[in-house]
Structure formats: C-alpha cells, structure tokens
C-alpha cells in the first residue's frame, strides 16, 4: 500500500466548495419549488435533500412519491440513476491518501456528488478526509438551505424565475467539462462522443425508451472504454 499523505487543507476544500455551494443553492431552490408544486410537505422535502444530496435521484423520488408509487419503484430508480456514484466512488479509491480510515470513508461517501467528485478528482494531488469535509461543507449547507427556501416560497415564485433556475445545474456541468476539454484531446473526444451517444438515447426511437439514469451509465461507460483505448493516460511516477 502507498503511504502517501496529502497536504491539502480543510480551508482549501471550503474554498473549492464555495462555487458548488452557491450553484447548489440555486438548483435546490428549483428542487424545493418543484416539490412544493407536487404538494409534498416542506419538512419531507428538506429531509430528502439533507439525506440524499443528489439532484436527479431526488427529482425522480418526489415524482414517485407524488404519484403514489411503490417502494420497489423507488429502490429501482435510485439504483439506476445513482449507479454513476458507484463508478465515481470506485474512481475515488485510487485518489484518496493513506489517512483515510473506515470512519472517514463511511462519512465521505455521503458527499459523493457529480460536482464534488469532479472537483476532488481534478485535483492534481491525492485527497485527504479534511479536504473532502471542507469541500462538502458549503455544498451541503447550500443544498439544504436552498431546498428550504424553494419549498417555502415555491407557490409564490413566478415561473420565469423557476424556469431560469432550471438551467443552473447544467451550466455548472459545462463549466466543469469545457476547460479540461480545451487542454486535453482525450477529454474533448470523451465529451463529444458521450454527447452524441446521449442524444442518440434521447432522439432515436426504441433507444429513447431507456430511462435517463440507465442511458447515462451506458453512454459514460461506452465512451470511456473507447476513449481510453485511443487516448491512454500518461503513467505518472507514483512515489510508492
């Protein structure tokens, strides 16, 4: 086992987490509004955000709850939509330093979201628990507080505001993906290929019957398998 210890600080994590936190604040307002329109009690909506911390999963969750769906339905959709976290979590096992123990792994697992993961994995060095807690702090607060605001004000908020908020999350994804794609051909190729696959799953008859969460996994894995073949990463000299 490597004995590498990361020197990243809690404070650096908080700093890196600020834009995510503010992004989450606006996106979770949109989530709260949506839940209030579906007549879900405010405390339930806030509890969902505080215990799930996942946009797509929560959205489908409240739709199932509002539609009086079953537990089985909830389990299956969450498994499919959130299975990307399984991949991200697996990737992170190669990124964490030796100061991680079981307790910090159990706690840090809670905070694996698309954005937190993207920022943590784009760090050049290994990450330690302190950094992850710092990184997750503001996103967690932003996500919970935003949900509370949205759920409380939902019925009073005009549509032009809620629909403008709808694009926030996706804009943030673009902001994560584009800069590294400019720098590395492999990433650029991955972005383009995955986008094409994803559009295929959206527009092509029969393929568009596949649920969004499942389609995302197929697109991502297929893309990564192909791009990794043509653009293998440089082997770094691990100090082990």
């Amino acid at each position: 086992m490597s004995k590498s210890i990361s020197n990243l600080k809690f404070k650096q994590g908080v700093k890196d987490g600020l834009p995510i936190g503010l992004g989450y604040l606006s996106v979770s307002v949109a989530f709260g509004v949506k839940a209030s329109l579906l007549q879900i009690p405010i405390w339930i909506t806030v509890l969902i955000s505080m215990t799930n911390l996942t946009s797509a999963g929560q959205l489908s969750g409240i739709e199932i709850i509002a539609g009086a769906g079953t537990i089985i339905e909830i389990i299956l959709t969450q498994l499919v939509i959130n299975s990307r976290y399984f991949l991200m979590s697996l990737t992170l096992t190669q990124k964490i330093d030796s100061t991680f123990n079981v307790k910090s792994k159990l706690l840090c697992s809670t905070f694996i979201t698309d954005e937190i993961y993207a920022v943590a994995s784009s760090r050049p060095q290994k990450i330690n628990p302190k950094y992850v807690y710092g990184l997750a702090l503001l996103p967690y607060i932003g996500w919970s507080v935003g949900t509370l605001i949205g759920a409380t004000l939902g019925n009073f908020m005009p549509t032009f505001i809620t629909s403008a908020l709808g694009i926030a999350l996706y804009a943030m994804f673009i902001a994560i993906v584009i800069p590294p794609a400019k720098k590395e051909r492999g990433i650029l190729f991955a972005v383009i290929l995955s986008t094409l696959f994803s559009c295929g799953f959206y527009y092509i008859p029969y393929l568009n019957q596949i649920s969004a969460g499942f389609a995302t996994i197929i697109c991502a894995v297929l893309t990564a398998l192909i791009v990794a073949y043509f653009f293998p990463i440089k082997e770094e000299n691990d100090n082990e």
Partner: protein
Amino acid sequence: MSEMQMLLMVITMALVTYIVRMIPLTFFKRKIKSRYIKSVLYYIPYAVLSAMTFPAIFYSTGNLYTALIGTAVALILAFFKRSLLTVAIFSCLAVLIFGFII
C-alpha cells in the same frame, strides 16, 4: 400518501443512494495497475457530465429558445475559463432576460 409513508420512502431513497456511494470507497482497497482501466476511470466523470447535460439542457427551462441562449452563454463563458458560479449565474440571467424579450 400519508406523511409516514412518505417518510418511509425518503429513508429508503437515502439508504439506497448511500449504499451505492459507500460500497466501492469503503471496501475496494486495491491499487488499480492496468493503464487501460485507469484511463477508463479517468474519462468517466467527463463522459457522465456530458451525457447528463446534453440534450437535457435544451429542455431545462421549458422553452427551447431560452435554453439555447443559456447553453450558448454557458459554453462561451466556460471556454474562457470562468468559475462554476459565474457560468451558472450568467446562464440563468441569459435565460431570464431572453425570456422577457421573446
């Protein structure tokens, strides 16, 4: 659905989501040696985010035209390496303003 039933649903959701995140990080301890597997894992996040963004972003505002403007603004600002927050805010503003014009 009663609030108790909703609570049960929420707890189930949270557990499933947590288990999916927790299992690899907690139980997978090996260092991956294969250069190919490492490369696959390296590209996964970019592929995931791209697939989640397109084409869903075009339908994120309830109006294709405002969404296209918002997407263009996000792409341009991201190209010039603006922060996540700046990109998100200006994209929302573009949708908001353009929504009033059309």
